[in-house]
């Protein structure tokens, strides 16, 4: 008699824990032939609020770490992702990627994390500088993290898209609430397990699966979210984000692919300028 395999329950990732949605709802993740691969949690408005609250609580700890330390943790995520490459290739293949494309995507996602890991203790040297003011003052500008950032991950590529949008937000010390790919959610959920075993402090990344159309208005309107990366938003969803952003003057980044750039880090920073007189 063949052995019955044990299937995973795909849940949310909030505050370093894996809860089901408080709504008790889930939806089916389908493969390329329309067959049900698994059921995943449908996050509710309350789940999103919980995620924002835990993200807010994690800001000072994450932002307070040294760039060197954040860089090492990002590198550790890359290591763990590489280690579990097989699982991601399986999941991406099940969702319709060819095996070669899936392998390439996982490799690129690992490399992207390594690339951003190296920025964590350097980007402030690129964006910050001493300002030569006309007076006896020490004057310096340096970037600081914006705070809590909502990340709307692209539908596809489900893993590389998520990693490409998430990593630059984490680099300067922001914490995040991520809305995963709705159509290919499993790699994101498995990625949250990678995060959980890579020394990422609880609450720094909170990952929700569910209906983007349902969740985006709550994310966009939330008064304790400082910025939204709408990288995976449709034009209508982007407009909804921009409208909600008005309530507390959120910074909004529009979709612009899944490339890598230090200017993606800069988009989630605030430049602080400090003056001090010089004198005897």
């Amino acid at each position, binding site marked *: 008699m063949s052995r019955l395999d044990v299937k995973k329950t795909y849940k949310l990732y909030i505050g370093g824990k894996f809860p089901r949605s408080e709504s008790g709802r889930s939806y089916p993740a389908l493969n390329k032939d329309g067959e049900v691969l698994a059921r995943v949690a449908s996050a509710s408005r309350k789940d999103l609020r919980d995620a924002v609250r835990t993200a807010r609580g994690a800001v000072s700890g994450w932002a307070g770490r040294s760039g060197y330390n954040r860089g090492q943790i990002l590198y550790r995520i890359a290591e763990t992702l590489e280690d579990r490459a097989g699982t991601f290739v399986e999941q991406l293949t099940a969702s319709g990627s060819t095996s070669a494309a899936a392998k390439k995507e996982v490799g690129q996602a690992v490399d992207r994390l390594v690339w951003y890991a190296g920025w964590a203790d350097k980007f402030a040297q690129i964006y910050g500088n001493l300002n030569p003011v006309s007076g006896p003052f020490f004057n310096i500008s340096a970037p600081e993290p914006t705070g809590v950032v909502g990340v709307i991950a692209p539908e596809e590529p489900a893993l590389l898209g998520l990693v490409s949008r998430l990593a630059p937000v984490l680099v300067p010390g922001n914490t995040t609430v991520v809305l995963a790919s709705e159509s290919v959610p499993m790699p994101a959920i498995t990625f949250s397990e990678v995060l959980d075993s890579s020394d990422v402090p609880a609450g720094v990344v909170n990952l929700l699966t569910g209906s983007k159309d349902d969740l985006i208005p709550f994310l966009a309107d939330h008064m304790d979210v400082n910025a939204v990366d709408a990288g995976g938003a449709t034009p209508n969803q982007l407009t909804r984000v921009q*409208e909600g952003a008005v309530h507390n003057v959120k910074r909004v980044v529009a979709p612009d692919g899944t490339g890598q750039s230090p200017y993606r880090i800069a988009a989630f920073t605030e*430049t602080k300028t400090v003056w*001090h007189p010089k004198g005897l």
Partner: protein
Amino acid sequence: MTAEITKPSTAPLEWEYATSREATDILDLEDKYGLFIDGEFVKPKSKSYFPSINPATEETIAEVAEAGEADVDAAVSAARRAHTEVWGPMPGAERAKHIFRIARMIQERGRELAVLETLDGGKPIKEARDVDIPLVAGHFFYYAGWADKLEYAFPGIRPESLGVAGQVIPWNFPMLMLAWKVAPALAAGNTVVLKPAETTPLTALLLASIATEAGLPPGVLNVVTGAGKTGAAVVSHEDVDKVAFTGSTAVGKLIQSQLAGTDKKLTLELGGKAAHVIFEDAPLDQAIEGVINGIFFNQGHVCCAGSRLLVQENIHDRFVDKLKRRLATLRVGDPLDKNTDVGAINSRAQLDKINELVESGQSEGAEMFQPDCVLPDRGFFFKPTLFTNVAQSHRIAQEEIFGPVLSILSFRTPEEAVEKANNTPYGLSAGVWTSKGSRILWMADQMKAGVVWANTYNKFDPASPFGGYKESGFGREGGRHGLLPYLKWSES
């Protein structure tokens, strides 16, 4: 021989100052101003004009055109054409020379600009003359030099101009806000449609004529005067690529919502309610001067004004006493008088707003102090005011008053100071006074504000980026950072 000994007088010292009024005959003003579109002053298609008054006398200085939608459209078309045909293709080194030349002519006509700024806006002539106008020239000079060096400003990118920038500026620093917006926009290769505030349009029009005299090609800078409707027409014009706004958070949010669903780039420099923190070990006399400058500079019409004073509890009473004594020496009155420290409130509407908030402070239970000073009979004036016994929940501790009104709170520990300092939706600026170096750096780290002044306050420089966190807006103006909002780029 007996020496005659004169006994010293026991009468109190008189601190009356003789009037020292700046002459206004340097100005050569028109009765009526058109819109500045495509290199010349034109009559508005709207056929509508409005008066710009002197807030210190309530007299009309000149009639100014009110741009309607058709006028704004003409200005945007002129800017687009100038961007496509002239300013966009022009080598950076040539653009630089144009901007340098404007900077030099601003210096040359600085006195004229300063007098008009004071006349139209009510700020003390010593501030317009010594702060605003020198900084204006400085901004043009600073950004002129960037025009042919953009590829060195940000590593790894090939920068390009955006196109037409629509810029809406406030009345508190009419020329300086113009310079903050126009200089980097032009340096980055954009053309501009500028909407000055309706109460202070005159210096922008004078600058437009200076720019023409300096040989700036037609259409590169257009000035459309008017009120909120004109501003709305500028920011919502479909051929504007970039919107930059400085003003209230309420209007900033309106603009942000108007731009939702478009791909226009936006920067917002909005309100503030800056915490100004005084530790027990601060150099108190210097701190007093910093606090005075922080809240009474430009009648407190300053988005980064240090309007929430946080004083460590054990020095609170002593510090407040000193502050009250210093308040009594401020000279309030005719902005054109070179002795004046606190000039006129910019408009009747702003005076009403200050009065309303000050009344709320009294009715909510804070204790008000105003020095015994005489205000002019005419014009809009308000006594330098401070409130003690202020709670964090009071409106005067939460809302931007934008007037010469200081709210004073106290704290015990540095942690409490930070907690209170950051307890606001704003995040534009903050100040801290202490003799301890490590505490300065710790406070500077902790305070969520775009500009932190340590052992100084309200210092500005063309090379120094300025802009807010949270609801104080986004984007930076000034310095290298100030170029970025006016560029698009590709990466190699």
